[in-house]
């Protein structure tokens, strides 16, 4: 997957990175030396100028990057199983009153009980691929699981209410 990014130096100010999208738009990120960032969208009438530019602080830029980064990881994960018939990927949010809260992932015995594979855990903005059974489940975790419909439904019940 080739994405074109161009880097242009802005002497005395910082660096500009341009990203050309598949639809022909140019998105520019100006990184100032003092840590500020501008996110700019190029004017379609006049490709040399920007139609709008948003100033972002360091923290805001980091948050936006994480947001984009984690949503991309999620789409990549979901596209994994797409082509095998009958196999689904699902993201299950761990309920806040789950009996498995703060317990190892292995305690759910998901594989034995439902024949579903847990392929990743998403915690906040980080994605943990292939978690070990020893991984402790935390509030707000999202479990990414691959399996058949019935198995996924069963897993969803188990993490909410415990084994029947």
């Amino acid at each position: 997957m080739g994405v074109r990014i161009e880097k242009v130096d802005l002497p005395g100010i910082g660096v500009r990175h341009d990203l050309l999208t598949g639809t022909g738009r140019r998105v520019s990120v100006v990184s100032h030396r003092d840590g500020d960032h501008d996110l700019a969208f190029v004017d379609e009438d006049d490709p040399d100028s920007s139609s709008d530019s948003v100033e972002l602080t360091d923290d805001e830029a980091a948050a936006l990057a994480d947001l984009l980064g984690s949503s991309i990881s999620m789409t990549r994960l979901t596209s994994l199983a797409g082509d095998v018939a009958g196999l689904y990927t699902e993201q299950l949010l761990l309920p806040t009153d789950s009996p498995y809260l703060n317990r190892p992932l292995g305690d759910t015995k998901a594989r034995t009980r439902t024949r579903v594979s847990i392929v990743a855990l998403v915690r906040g903005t980080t994605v943990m691929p292939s978690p070990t059974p020893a991984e402790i489940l935390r509030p707000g975790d999202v479990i990414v699981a691959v399996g058949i419909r019935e198995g996924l439904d069963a897993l969803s019940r188990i993490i909410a209410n415990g084994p029947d």
Partner: protein
Amino acid sequence: MHETTVILIEVGALLLGMSLLGRLALRIGISPIPFYLLVGLLFGNGGFIPLDASADFFEVGSEIGVILLLALLGLEYTAQELLSNLKQSRVAGLLDAVFNALPGAVLALVLGWGPVAAVALAGVTWVSSSGVVAKMLRDLGRLSNRETPIVLAILVIEDLAMAFYLPILAALVVGVSLVQGAVTVAIAVGVVAAILFVALRYGRFISRIFTAEHPEPLLLGVLGLTMLVAGVAAEVNVSSAVGAFLVGIAVSGKVAHQASQVLTPLRDLFAAVFFVFFGLATDASELVSMLVPAALLAILTMATKVATGYLAARRGGIGIPGRWRAGLSLTPRGEFSIVIAGLAVSAGIEPRLAPLATGYVLITVVVGPFLARIPDTRWFKQRVRSRQAAVTSRSRG
């Protein structure tokens, strides 16, 4: 009243007044430089209320102001940036020099001020104010525009050219014989080239003298080194401003970033003092008689600057609206023009250069920001669009 008490009162009242004017400038959307110059004119020679007690303070302060202006300019650039820009935009830089320096030189010769004043006035009209232009680009939200690197490259080359121009001018104004002058110029250029080389190769080691973590030793250290080198440079006729500029370039990386943060408030204070001092030293009554030549020169060289930016942007493959944006944003002249005029006047070359430069900078700095906004107006965009439509229909038909 005691002498120092009077100084406190005069300087305090002046700074307070300048702060109010600075806010007014921000409100209008122009640089405060013209207001500072006007304050100086008002209180200086031939002005309404002469300042006596604080004259010494303003003289020393203005010297430090020039040094800090240049040092911070140097801190903004790394030596690598200077070199790569020089390689990429040589032609634009050359064009810029020819287009904008010549009118100044010619006017000085027409006025019968002699060749040295011609060299000085050429410098005054040549250099755009990187401070004013960079701030304008930021305010107008043009940093992500494609023509902006071209505009910045021109500014960088001008600033670098000043590192060679100022020592040459400094040697010329001393008024030595031709052979002696050539030797002085050669020494000056050699010293500048040597320092640039050291900055490029060993900048890291120079930066290592300082520590970025502690602001106070950093402030004293960088300020000390800058003033020391500036003084030594002035001693060998290389102009203190250039010495300071080169120190700024040599310091790099994290230290440069921190140093510019701690030095910026000082720069703001002393640069303001510098502009006021220049106004103080300028004869206000002479300004009136110089207003017409200044206005003519301003109109002519703003037009040549627009042409410079337009052509440079065209070489860079920028569309027509972008070319106009590049050209119109380059017109303001500022600190360098005043530094150059100050250098010439203090050496006793043509006193009328000061009022001319003051008037000239006043006009370009005030008009520049309004010119720069023209390409953003609906009127301009429609004109460009209808012009383009006419061209395409003609080429089709």
